[in-house]
């Protein structure tokens, strides 16, 4: 046993198992993340392939009934719940909580190795709407990287939690936005995207040198090129939006960062059908609600596809999944759009197919699967919108991730069925940072026509969208999904129950009540030869805050300032 001192001042004994594991540890680098070793979970999406899949099978469909809680950790101060994705390297689990608190824990026992509570601009955070949750960290080159709500990216020593560099990237005092999403480490750089969709900024995505913390490049998702500037009529690029608040991924074959971008502001436009020349932001508004490919070395735009030209519904592309598959000799990338439409691309973001996971959707009649054209789009004028808009502003899918299982060939993804009534308002252009948001409408959540709100876990072919099975939930689950080689799919739901399903049939095999709603990550890893499932629990935030007034029941008393990391193993 060896003794270490925390930066919080408390002594901690690190177990012999962990010390032995750490002695064998190799630095986390691009090749190791690419290889996605089965014992680890090295980046937000599991690996650069974004499968959210574990090849471990010690816990499997035959023995999952024996799953029980191995240990728990309480991060404290979980304002708006716990929304992050844990990472694991060499038996050490790293995760973040609200206010960018970071912990390194012994993956086998939960013992705290170190903790880091950054000093933040609390007065600024008290003014923010989409705050103070944090959705995860990145690992690389012996460091842990975390973003903050006051516009900084911080590099910590992975062994001690000591701050190695602290780089201010955004003037958050001026813009009132910061970083809530996890960074991505690749090829010596740390990539992180800012919040942006509802604010008059230009939605930057940054690359920072992992060794020094020095900024390498910045790409503006609002009018970031001459071509893009032409798509914002009437100087409307000044109303801004965009950003890329969830981590994308890295394609080493093309040396490209793939990233999804957020919506333009205001969220709802009063242009009517003449959106190319009229309304709040005439034109397509590049590169909002798009997927973009940036050269990792220079930050130059290589290619893009705008999933929703002139997004007038806040159905952005910021979801970070870029699921990399091979099908019939073709290398494909699958990316869900918030609207519930799932886009399939080649590795250069050339469109291959589009399919839809939601049943209730009417913002367009369809998206052409060959051209990507939005067919029968509803562009509102100022005033009351007669037919409710589907899906609701919280989307057809959450920002959280689905899971692709290469053993079953199925993509497990949650869909959300809900709508909203809407009155669009013509507002004065907001070209300077305002109180907070720039929505452009009054609205209220509503059930789908002729039905009730619900959510569903689908098992589908990721390329064609063909559905094999579906499990329904009375309220849409909002958390990430995990599948494993043990023929299991785990779904942490909104009521607080974590479910395990047979990956082939959808039959429920096990569940457990974690005591509060889930809206964050779930991973699997191995420490000391034993497989664990780690899930974050803790509710609250822009989507989940609607649950108490909409559904009542358990949500009425569910805290929105609490959370826990709960780790399971076989009893």
């Amino acid at each position: 046993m060896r003794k270490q001192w925390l930066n919080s001042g408390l002594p901690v004994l690190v177990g012999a198992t962990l010390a032995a594991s750490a002695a064998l540890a190799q630095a986390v680098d691009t090749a190791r993340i690419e290889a996605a070793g089965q014992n680890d979970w090295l980046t937000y999406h599991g690996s650069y392939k974004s499968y959210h899949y574990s090849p471990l099978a010690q816990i499997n469909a035959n023995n999952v009934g024996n799953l029980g809680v191995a240990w728990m950790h309480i991060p404290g101060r979980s304002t708006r719940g716990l929304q992050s994705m844990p990472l694991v390297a060499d038996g050490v689990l790293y995760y973040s909580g609200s206010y960018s608190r970071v912990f390194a824990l012994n993956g086998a026992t939960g013992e705290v190795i170190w903790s880091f509570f950054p000093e933040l601009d609390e007065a600024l955070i008290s003014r923010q709407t989409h705050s103070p949750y944090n959705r995860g960290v990145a690992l690389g080159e012996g460091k842990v990287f975390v973003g903050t709500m006051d516009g900084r990216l911080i590099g910590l020593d992975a062994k001690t939690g000591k701050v190695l560099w602290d780089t201010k990237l955004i003037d958050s005092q001026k813009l009132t936005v910061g970083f809530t999403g996890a960074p991505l480490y690749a090829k010596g750089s740390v990539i992180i995207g800012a919040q942006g969709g509802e604010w008059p900024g230009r939605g930057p995505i940054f690359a920072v040198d992992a060794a020094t913390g020095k900024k390498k490049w910045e790409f503006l998702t609002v009018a970031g090129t001459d071509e893009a500037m032409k798509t914002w009529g009437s100087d409307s690029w000044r109303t801004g939006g965009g950003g890329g608040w969830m981590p994308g991924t890295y394609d080493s074959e093309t040396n490209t960062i793939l990233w999804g971008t957020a919506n333009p502001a205001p969220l709802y436009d009063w242009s009517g059908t003449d959106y190319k020349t009229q309304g709040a932001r005439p034109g397509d508004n590049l590169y909002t609600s798009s997927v973009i490919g940036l050269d990792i070395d220079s930050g130059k735009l290589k290619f893009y596809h705008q999933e929703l030209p002139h997004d007038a519904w806040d159905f952005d592309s910021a979801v970070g999944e870029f699921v990399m598959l091979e099908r019939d000799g073709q290398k494909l990338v699958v990316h869900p759009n918030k609207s519930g439409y799932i886009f399939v691309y080649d590795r250069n973001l050339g469109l291959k197919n589009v399919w839809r996971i939601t049943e209730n959707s009417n913002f367009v009649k369809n998206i052409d699967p060959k051209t990507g054209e939005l067919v029968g789009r509803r562009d509102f004028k100022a005033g009351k919108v007669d037919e409710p808009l589907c899906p609701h502003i919280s989307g057809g899918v959450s920002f959280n991730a689905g899971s692709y299982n290469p053993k079953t060939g199925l993509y497990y993804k949650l869909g959300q069925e809900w709508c909203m009534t809407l009155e669009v308002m013509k507002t004065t252009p907001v070209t300077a940072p305002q109180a907070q948001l720039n929505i452009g409408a009054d609205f209220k959540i509503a059930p789908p026509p002729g039905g009730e709100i619900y959510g569903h876990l689908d098992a589908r072919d990721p390329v064609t969208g063909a559905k094999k099975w579906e499990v329904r939930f009375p309220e849409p689950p909002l958390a990430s999904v995990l599948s494993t080689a043990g023929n299991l799919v785990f779904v942490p739901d909104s009521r607080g129950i974590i479910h395990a399903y047979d990956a082939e049939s959808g039959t429920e095999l096990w569940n457990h009540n974690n005591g509060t709603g889930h809206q964050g990550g779930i991973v699997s890893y191995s420490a000391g030869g034993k497989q664990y499932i780690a899930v974050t629990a803790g509710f609250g935030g822009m989507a989940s805050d609607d649950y108490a007034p909409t559904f009542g029941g358990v949500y009425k008393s569910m805290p929105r300032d609490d959370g826990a990391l709960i780790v399971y193993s076989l009893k």
Partner: protein
Amino acid sequence: MKSNLGTMTLLPAAALAVSLACGVPVHAQSATPAPDQETFDVGQLFATTCGWCHSDGGRAAGKGPQLMNTTRDDAYLRSRIKSGKSGAMPAFGETFSDAQIDQIITYIRQLKPREG
């Protein structure tokens, strides 16, 4: 029909204190100058900011409570607008003048169900 209760003329003193479109923070260092505007449109403020949580312009509960017919007194509303509530509502004390907050309260007091 949309209520027009939200548009009210700013008191001169308050107009001097702010230069805002739908509530630009007094302390904001604007990248571009905000329009010089002498009206403070609370209806627009709800459509751009407050309405995400106080649904339907404050007429219905959403993430935040229904404001129409609230039983809270003015002092409570003023305090909540200024200081916010951790994890639930931002603090707008640095954003709006006292006169503007009074106008927000007036808007809340005059809220009526939509016609039709």
